Structures are given as C-alpha cells and as structure tokens.
C-alpha cells in the first residue's frame, strides 16, 4: 500500500480547473484527495516540500516509439517508461510500429504487461490501423480497444489508400477512438531526406515538400467530414497544414492535431553540414512554419504537444545523412526545450504549456488524468522553473542518444514525476 503523499508549498498550476497559486496537494489511494490551501493530511503521509516549484497535472505524450518488441537494443518499454518519468510524462502512448506490429489484442496485452512490470510511467498502447501496417486490411480494433488500446495509427507510414482511411475512421468511430495519421504523400516524399528548399538545394539532398504533408492533411480532414470519425493528425510541420486544420475546425469537423517540440523550435538550418540528429520525418522546416506552428498551438488550432520520441542506435545515426534513420529522442527534453524557447521569452505562458502537455492530450485521446481535480488519478508532475542544465546523452534514461539538443543548456526541469500517487522519478535540483 502506497503511503499518502502530501506536496506542500508548491505553486499549483492546472488550467483544467483554473488553479494558479501556492497550495498543498494530497494524494491518497492513487487519487487526488485534496487540492489547494493548507492541507493537514493524515499522520502517515509522506511530505514533500515543493517550495519554489510548480505542481502540475502529469504530462501525457500521445506519440512515442518504445521499440519493444523487436528493437530492444534501442529502447524497451521499461527504459522508455523511465525516460518518460524523467521528462515529467506520467503517461505515454506507444506507437504500434514494432516488430511484430501491434495489430492484435495479444500484442496490446504484451505492452500493458511490460509496462506494468516497468513500474514507471503509464504506457497506453496504440494499435495499428492495418494488419502489419501494410495498408491493406483493417486490424481488429474492437478487440484491441477491449485489451487497452487507446487509438489506432500506422504511424511511420502514411495510410496511402483513401478508401482504407475512410473505413478506418468509420470503424474506429464505433469504438470511440481517434485514428492518428502520419500525413505523407509517399510519391512526393519518396527518397527525401530533409525539407525541400534552399538548404536541400545547396546540400544536394532530395527534399520533402510541404505539400506531401498538406495533401494528406486535407484528405484526412475531408474524410473525417464525410465519416464523422475522429482524425488526429500527427507531428504537424508546415504553415499550410495549420491553415487546413483551421479550415476544418471552423467547420466543426472532428480533427485534432499535435506538434513536436523540435518543429516548434528548430528550422532546416539545424541540418547544418549533414547532422543526422536533425534528420526526422516530417523534416525540420522554415522559420515561417515554426512561427505558424507556435501561433497555432497558442490559439488552439493545434491541440497538443507530442514528442515523437524515436530512439535509434548510434551506429545507425552515425552514417551518411541520406542513409541514416529518421527521428530523435524527445521525452527527456520536451518540457525544458519548450520552457527555454517558448515560455522564457514570453511566447506562451507556463499555464498554456501545461495545458498543451497534459490537459489537452488527455482530452484528445480520452485518457484519464490531465487534471488535479479532486478524485482524478494521482498523476502529477513537479517542475523547477529556474533549474539550468546541460543536455548530456549519458544522463538519459532512454537508450537513445540521438538528440539535436546534446550540449545545449536548457532552463526548467522536472524534479518529480508521480504516477498513481507514487514517486516514479525524483531529481534533486541544486538551488
């Protein structure tokens, strides 16, 4: 039995219930037992002094790759769940592009079992849209949802067939889950290694045009309009996508969207001289895209932040740019990157960031948490707003070291991650 936990003197920050001020938080039996003011708490409660820190609902990442089963050499559910905890994510959604693919109820059950053993952050499985992610036959979504899947996606691959996407939206609607799509028109993007533009022309790398994303964004929005199914657009990267999503939302079409920390903060310039830690799909775009994405996050056109955490082995990244795999790790840097780039300069408030990293993802995927309301699950993140730290790969809990922020000094850091009223990550931050 977990002892009650009493967080005292922290700045409670929870936009879901309009909480923004100093107060205590009592967690008992895996639930929020009391919130705000001075709480005496039971005698056996463990007290944690949160003075000078923010206490927020636990962050939720609706998009990460934990690689197990299949590539346990680059990440396991256990190391991924610990990396999530270190980054303040009390829950993450694991994409199904594992080997074998998470396309049936047994595979969903395996992920849940491994997550339970890991005993760190919660891991919610995402099932595949199609069997083997081959884009042909629908996966058994009903059984996967019954086994604990929270969404379906063929992420990493686009759903090429519009007809399959249509039926996926219809079928998933039956079970009340969103269909998360990796928007990429494959014939346009084929062979591309970075954003198509000035830099790709100079470096002699085949570019991925913005339109390869936008064509699929509008297709998916139109299919959501036709079917009433909920489409969730993964890792948006272009200003054009933002305009299309805005168009869809204005018409009441059931579309939601996420954006990654790297697309909110970095441009194609970061590729520099073929740095494979700046290679991801969708690629880093231009300042115009970054500005539009930030504005869209602020105004709600884009609903939430997601990391697209994608660990790769160093040997695979340490090679020719065009042959290196796409993706970067993100769980352990997301909060600090966004605090440094967006909150510190006053682009968005910390409260808005907490909404985008906790409340909104819970809402979008229909997950528990994302709030400190009394009676909610006791998933809590405590962060120190002034801590300054330098990113070092060796310090990651993730097995992945592929981060574009290695060596960067960031401000703001997670100090506690609490899942179901239990501390799963604690970091002492020197003041």
């Amino acid at each position, binding site marked *: 039995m977990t002892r009650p936990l009493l967080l005292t003197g922290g700045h409670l920050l929870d936009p879901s219930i309009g909480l923004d001020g100093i107060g205590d938080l009592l967690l008992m039996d895996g639930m929020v037992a009391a919130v705000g003011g001075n709480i005496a708490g039971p005698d056996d409660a463990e007290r944690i002094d949160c003075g000078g820190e923010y206490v927020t609902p636990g962050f939720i990442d609706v998009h990460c790759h934990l690689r197990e089963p299949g590539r346990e050499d680059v990440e396991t559910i256990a190391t991924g769940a610990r990396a999530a905890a270190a980054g303040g994510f009390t829950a993450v959604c694991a994409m199904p592009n594992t080997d074998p693919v998470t396309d049936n109820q047994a595979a969903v059950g395996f992920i849940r079992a491994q997550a339970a053993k890991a005993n760190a952050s919660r891991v919610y499985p995402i099932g595949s849209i199609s069997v083997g992610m081959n884009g042909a036959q629908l996966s058994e979504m009903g059984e996967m949802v019954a086994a604990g899947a929270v969404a379906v996606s063929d992420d990493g691959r686009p759903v090429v067939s519009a007809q399959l996407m249509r039926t996926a939206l219809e079928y998933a609607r039956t079970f009340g889950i969103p269909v998360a799509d990796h928007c990429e028109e494959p014939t346009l993007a084929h062979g591309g290694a970075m954003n*198509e*533009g*000035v*830099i*790709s*022309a*100079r*470096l*002699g*790398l*085949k*570019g991925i*045009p913005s339109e390869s994303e936008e064509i699929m964004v509008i297709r998916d929005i139109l299919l959501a309009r036709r079917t009433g199914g909920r489409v969730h657009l993964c890792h948006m990267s272009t200003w054009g996508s933002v305009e299309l999503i805005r168009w869809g939302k204005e018409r009441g079409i059931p579309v939601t969207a996420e954006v990654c920390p790297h697309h909110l903060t970095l441009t194609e310039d970061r590729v520099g*001289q*073929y740095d494979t830690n700046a290679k991801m799909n969708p690629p880093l775009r231009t300042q115009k895209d970054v500005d539009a994405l930030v504005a869209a996050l602020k105004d709600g056109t884009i609903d939430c932040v997601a990391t697209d955490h994608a660990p790769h082995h160093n*040997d695979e990244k*340490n*090679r*020719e*740019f*065009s*042959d290196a795999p796409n993706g970067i790790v993100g769980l352990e840097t997301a909060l600090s990157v966004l605090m440094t780039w967006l909150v510190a300069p006053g682009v968005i408030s910390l409260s808005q960031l907490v909404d985008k990293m906790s409340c909104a993802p819970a809402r979008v995927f229909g997950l528990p948490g994302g709030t400190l309301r009394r009676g909610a699950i006791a998933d809590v993140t405590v962060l120190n707003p002034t801590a300054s730290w330098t990113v070092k790969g060796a310090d990651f809990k993730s097995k992945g070291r592929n981060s574009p922020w290695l060596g960067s000094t960031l401000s703001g850091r997670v100090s506690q991650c609490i899942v179901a009223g239990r501390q799963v990550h604690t970091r002492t931050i020197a003041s």
Partner: protein
Amino acid sequence: MTGLGKDLLDLESLSAEQITAILDTAEPLKAISLRAIKKVPTLRGETIVNLFFEASTRTRVSFEFAEKRMSADAVNVAIGNSSVSKGETLVDTARNLEAMKIDMVVIRHQASGAARFLAERIESNVINAGDGTHEHPTQGLLDLLTLRDKWGTLKGKRVCLCGDVLHSRVARSNIHGLRKLGAEVAVCGPRSLLPNGAEEALGVTVFDRIEAAIEWADALNILRLQLERMTSGYIPSLREYNRVFGVTRERLDRAPRDLLILHPGPMNRGVEIDSDVADGPHSLILDQVTNGVAVRMAVLYLLRGGRPDLAAAGTAAGE
C-alpha cells in the same frame, strides 16, 4: 586565408582567395604533364587511397595520374554497393584504411555529405571526388581553370550551366566557384531538372529557353543528362530533350558572340550536345580533361602542406 586546411570538401566553403590560390598553383604544374619524364618527387613517400564507391573512369584516372606524377603511392579501392550488403560502414572502411597508415583519401560516394562525414572522422586529408548530388569540387576547379586560361579573368563573364542541375554535383561546384570569382551564373533546363527556387538557393538566373541562354552567355557548361531521368519521369523523352534543350550548331550560329563550350563528360552525343559542337572550334572539353590533372596535382600539393609560391620550385627540383 589561402591555406586549404585539412580537406577539400566543397567550393561553397572556400574563399575566392583560396580558389585562386589553387588555380595559381595548378598553372605551373601543367608543364609536368608535357615532359618526357612526367614525374616530380614532391609527394614521394606519401600514401593515397582512391576510395571509389561509384563507378568512375575519368575522375579516378585523372586523380591517379596526378598522384603518380607527384610520386605518391596510390592505391585504388573500388567498392561497389556490395560493401553495404557486407555490412561494413563507411566509417569502418575508412578507419581500416587509415590503420594501414595512409596520408590521404580521395573519395567518390553516392551519398551527399559523405566526404565531409569521412573527413570529420579520420585524420588523413580527404578530397571529395564527388558526393551524391552535392559537390564535385575538383571538377569545378578544373572548369574554372579552363575558362580562366581563355579569358584571363572570370570577372563579369557569363556562364550558363545547361541541363540536369537538380542532380548535378558538377553544377553546384561550378556555381559556387564561378560566383566567388566574380562571374555571373545562369542555369537552363526543364524546370523538372532544376532545384525548386534555384534563384534563391544558388544565386543564379534561370532560363527556360536554351536560345535565351545562348544569347546571354559567354560560355555554356553542358551537363550530362543521366539517361535514367527519362524512365524515372523527369522528362518525357531524350528526343524531345534534344529538340528543346540540345546545344546544336544551328542554335550557336544565332548567338551574338562565339561561346566557349564545356562538358564534364561523359557526353551523350545527340542528346544534350551535338557532335559538331562538342568537336567544334570553341569546344574546351579536352582542355578540361588536361587541366583536371594539373588541378588535382595542385590540390594534393596544397593539402599536404605545400606553399603556393613554391609549387613551381617543387617542379624544378624534379628536373
């Protein structure tokens, strides 16, 4: 700054002074290839590996002659794509070669950025002999030398690169080198074979019509059209390409001035260039090949620490 540093990876990152120093160094080295005994001892005892991951005849042979005429010990390693299936990475291949105590690697590789990737990971000097669709700096230098020989200076001269600029490493090196030395640069070809936004990305003028390019230019550098561009859908047919973009005698005859003609080879006669142009009085195509050896000798010499002003002295010592 006229020194070159450790490697020659591209012309984009070189200054006009550095490029000029290479060309000035190449000039006296040309004489070596005209002698009965075509050899100087400048690089005696130095070991150079020509590491070719892509097929090449002209460039590899040119480097090999340059190395041998400077008395370096050169080894050719031709690695097909099979090395990838064998599983050895580029960095492992290079480290193994370096463990045999070499001084320099000349690399040709199908991936853009491969030469830089290698240079950042080994201590030997690295020369880029063509990386993907990025750059081919020694080809760019030999084109510059060839034009400078004719004109004395590149300042204010107008050069148009014709054809498949999108996939051409030769084009990128030429564009950077020409612009740095004060020439005006244009490109001409079907838009499907030009980088989207070439004007902004590369600082060039774009001509849609070869006739307009010919009217504008002082020289044309006619790029090889890879024959697979048709099957992969960039252009409808080689026949139409020749009809619309081919550099023909008839088109050149309408030009207001005599144009110098360059081609990096190998040529597709009757596609991008007609034979009577390639073999005509203003063609510098074979001068390019001759100059290639001198330019590569200059680069080898400078990267191994040679002083530009002593290049001629070095050749004298070999006599």
